[in-house]
């Protein structure tokens, strides 16, 4: 069974130690929130459902377009980025970052934190 306190702690460390990361959430593939640290005003339930839906659809599109396994879904808006990645088969990680973030560093940190989260979910 997932250790929710551990998930929350990992997210806390990720958001506070990675420059320009504004929030993160770990959700189940069915869209249920497991742990989150989201900017004020964001609805946790809705964000979780949308995150799972988007990753699911992205993976489906990846297969349809014969692009192989999807590493991440990357949303680029004028105010920043939203990145969705799988944490194994048990969870989805959403990361929100500002426009100023260095993308290479962001992806590296997401990869590291995803591995930590996947371990905590076992």
């Amino acid at each position, binding site marked *: 069974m997932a250790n929710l306190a551990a998930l929350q702690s990992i997210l806390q460390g990720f958001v506070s130690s990675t420059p320009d990361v504004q929030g993160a959430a770990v959700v189940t*593939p*069915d*869209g*249920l929130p497991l742990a989150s640290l989201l900017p004020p005003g964001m*609805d946790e*339930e*809705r964000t979780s*459902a*949308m995150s*799972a*839906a988007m990753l*699911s*659809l992205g*993976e*489906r599109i990846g297969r349809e377009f014969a692009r192989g396994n999807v590493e991440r879904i990357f949303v680029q808006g004028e105010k920043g980025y939203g990145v969705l990645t799988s944490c194994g088969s048990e969870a989805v990680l959403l990361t929100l970052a500002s426009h100023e973030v260095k993308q290479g560093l962001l992806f590296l940190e997401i990869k590291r934190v995803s591995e930590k989260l996947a371990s905590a979910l076992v």
Partner: protein
Amino acid sequence: MAISPEALLTALIARTNFSPADREVLKANQDWGAQLAPTMSDHFYAYLDRDPEMAAVIAKHNRQRLGETFIAWFKEMFTGMDDWGSQYAQRRWKIGIVHVRIGIGPQHVVPAMATVVLEVGQQIREQGKPEDLRTALAKVCMMDLSFIEQAYLESAYRAVQQETGMSEALFKRLIATGIS
């Protein structure tokens, strides 16, 4: 389908309290039902002809065949086919899917079924048939209507799940979180 046709029928029988007495009164009047079926079909399609949207859908299909299908459906409400068992459930599910396929939605089906219920009720009164028959037929009509509604829902779920890869739980969660 998230719920099997048989399970759906069982649930509907319980929810409408479709009793052994209801089955008996329907079966006892199946000859009357068979006799009435062509009149009901004419009444039903005359109603649909007055609705421009429905008339456009109907125009794309063979009118005689549609009439025969209605007559068969109407008769089956009296016989229950296999005593409202698996065969009946499968047939009702198939009817629901056909409605989805040809684009007849709940906004069309519900008033059309109301027309059937009202007209058959009037025929029962005019021909001095027992009130129990009207009640039993109304229950069967509502069960059949539920099958068509459920077919719509299930078909939409299935299509979205197939195209997006979403689980049923996620799809339902999106609907719940999206309703404000």
